[in-house]
């Protein structure tokens, strides 16, 4: 226990090249700390250089020229959220004179070096109508003013929670609208933990992969199945995992699954045909272009910010390298080396799959799930959980039916969670006025020994569980 204390109290500090998350209220942006690099966050230019050496969790003021300045910790209970709000706006007469501070006053305050937070407080104190506004109006007011005057940013360590909330809040289309609570359900239902050998197939920008790797903590192994076009791993990079985490990460092209399963896939040194390269590991490792999100038919709220919410620095570094180096030889040689490395890694992945003893299967993609599930389940050991996410219920109903016909799975369950956030304030407690309309659907189950015999017909009909139970008790 003494040792633990020492380990845990070594307060982690921000280092150069760290993957970090910028945070303001509930807005997040994942970014890598790079010297003299301009970052846009909430329409503001920042340089993160001054963050280096500061502990994680530090809040900074953004001062002139986008430079960060670490804040002193503030007393608890910040902006006046606990003051009484008007219950309706019956007494509000908006004559355009409700703010006693003039523009000039505010400019003077700014010149006096008042922090944004304090300016907002001044505005509130000098508003004659604030107290009578409804809480909804008050919130809107504070949010607006904060955005305008409060130039602060907190730098936190990336985590599955933070990144899942970031993507869900700002670019749900990139992660197939997977809500963070749903991701949490998947990790638990999949019994993902250190030492697992997990098969992952996702098209969620690498968020699901990253969340699985975080739970493995560098122990065990992940085989990521890559579709044609390759995986996008911006989110995985944003976790900022230590290098050794990547040693447990393997890739295998989805397009070779059937040949691996029927035994026709053979590896030899000579086998590296051009055709193969284009469609397989090449994609897994390098392609980071966005694939148009075909399943994204729901209208997205148009973000005013057009900035990307995560800055994939690895990619940019790559581009810079390409830009700076003009020597064709090096590129060719590089490619050759990479190629061999990939081939070697694919063989390892194939060997891992061939053992057919994976401890779990996690799917969250924009593809039709049933063919993938039916094939990949063959690589999973019996008595292991699997979990399939889809934004839409209908493909999972199909998947459910196919799995029932196949047999060898029990505890099949199609579910959805409702996430309800609350405002808890004195005399103003209620559920938040806006909620997410849906977080997607999950189909989960447990593998068991496959029956030689065909599943009985009763499985396919819609009989209630009670009746079926009598006939065939242990197939459910």
């Amino acid at each position, binding site marked *: 226990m003494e040792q633990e204390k020492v380990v845990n109290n070594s307060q982690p500090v921000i280092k150069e090249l760290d993957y970090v998350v910028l945070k303001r209220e509930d807005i997040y942006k994942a970014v890598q700390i790079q010297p003299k690099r301009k970052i846009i966050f909430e329409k503001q230019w920042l340089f993160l250089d001054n963050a280096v050496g500061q502990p994680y969790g530090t809040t900074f003021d953004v001062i002139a020229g986008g430079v960060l300045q670490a804040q002193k*910790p503030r007393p608890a209970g910040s902006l006046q959220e606990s003051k009484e709000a008007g219950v309706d706006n019956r007494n509000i007469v908006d004559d355009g004179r409700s703010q006693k501070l003039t523009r000039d006053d505010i400019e003077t305050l700014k010149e006096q070096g008042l922090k944004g937070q304090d300016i907002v407080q001044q505005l509130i104190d000098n508003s004659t109508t604030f107290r009578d506004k409804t809480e909804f109006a008050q919130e809107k007011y504070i949010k607006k003013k904060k955005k305008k005057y409060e130039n602060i940013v907190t730098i936190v360590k990336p985590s599955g929670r933070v990144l899942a909330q970031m993507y869900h809040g700002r670019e749900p289309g990139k992660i197939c609208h997977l809500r963070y*609570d749903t991701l949490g359900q998947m990790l638990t239902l999949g019994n993902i933990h*250190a030492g697992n050998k997990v098969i992952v197939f996702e098209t969620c920008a690498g968020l699901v992969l990253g969340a699985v790797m975080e739970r493995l*903590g560098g122990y065990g192994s992940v085989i990521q199945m890559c579709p044609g076009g390759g995986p996008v791993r911006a989110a995985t990079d944003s976790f900022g995992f230590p290098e050794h985490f990547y040693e447990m990460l393997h890739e295998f092209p989805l397009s070779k699954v059937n040949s691996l399963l029927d035994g026709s896939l053979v590896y030899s040194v000579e086998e590296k045909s051009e055709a193969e390269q284009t469609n397989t590991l090449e994609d897994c490792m390098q392609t980071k272009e966005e694939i148009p999100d075909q399943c994204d038919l729901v209208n997205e709220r148009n973000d005013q910010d057009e900035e990307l919410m995560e800055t994939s620095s690895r990619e940019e570094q790559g581009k810079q390298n390409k830009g700076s180096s003009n020597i064709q030889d090096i590129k060719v040689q590089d490619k050759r080396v990479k190629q061999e490395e990939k081939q070697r890694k694919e063989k390892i992945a194939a060997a891992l799959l061939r053992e057919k003893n994976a401890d779990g299967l996690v799917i969250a993609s924009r593809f039709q799930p049933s063919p993938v599930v039916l094939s990949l389940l063959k690589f999973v050991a019996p008595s*292991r959980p699997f979990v399939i996410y889809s934004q839409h219920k209908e493909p999972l109903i199909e998947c459910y039916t196919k799995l029932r016909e196949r047999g060898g799975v029990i505890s099949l369950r199609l*579910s959805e969670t409702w996430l309800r956030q609350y405002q808890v304030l004195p005399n103003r407690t209620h559920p938040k006025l806006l909620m997410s309309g849906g977080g997607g659907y999950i189909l989960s189950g447990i593998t*068991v020994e496959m029956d030689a015999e065909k599943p009985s017909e009763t499985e396919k009909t819609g009989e209630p569980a009670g009746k079926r139970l009598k006939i065939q008790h*242990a197939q459910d």
Partner: protein
Amino acid sequence: MSFVEYGEYIQEGDISIVFLGHESMFPIKVQHGAQTQTRYGVIRHSTDLIGKKYGSKVTCSKGGWVYILHPTPELWTVNLPHRTQILYSTDISMILMMLELKPGSIVCESGTGSGSLSHSIIRTIAPTGHLYTVEFHQQRAEKATEEFIAHRVAHLVTVKNQDVCKDGFGVVGVADAVFLDIPSPWEAIVHAKAAIKQGGGRLCSFSPCIEQVQRTCLALSECGFEEISTMEVLLRVYDVRTVSLPVPDLGSEPPGSQQATVTYKSAVTPKEMAGHTGYLTFATKSLL
């Protein structure tokens, strides 16, 4: 097997789950010479279980059959002996996620209760993390300790029998995360703060009633916690069924040319579901 490591084969001393059918299962301890009665007949551990693969179909003496499953915290949660109201997987998932638990995390929990959440925490923080769990009720603390030993996770957990509101967690400045499921969480917030390490950490409090939440949020705010956020997660499980509806007879010509029924694959909503378990309040203890 252990609750934090999969085993391929059923072995002497394992806790295994006997799966009889839809939502009908129970845990057993596998022992040479032992027998287990099921409604499909007897299972003889020595011959029917030991050495078999997990996930195998085992035929009982009356000819019926069952599956033997590897234990997981999720299966344990639906099979454990209730000593208290327990947390179920839906809330547990949210807690693990929002507390940012992962291998190596140091966690403080109170109360241990029936150990439902404890097992999930231990699974998630193994092999390098540790759970300090505090239980007011002596017998419960003892039972939990016994279970952790039987489940081969005792090295990952320290059970203390004390009142967290008075005596805290017994550790200071070490925790990445604290979880509270006690009647008066607001009384334990100072102890929770003390348990969290200097660099900061996360807290979760689970309470069934909104008044508890209100007092807890106030205490959290007064203690300098930030990002205080209260939520609820509800699970709706659908029943996938083939629904067949009769086609109405509108007198179309020629008579009899119509189908009698039409079928739909439908995800049928349950008649009843858990409408409330508790409110989850999360907060961050910031740096310093």
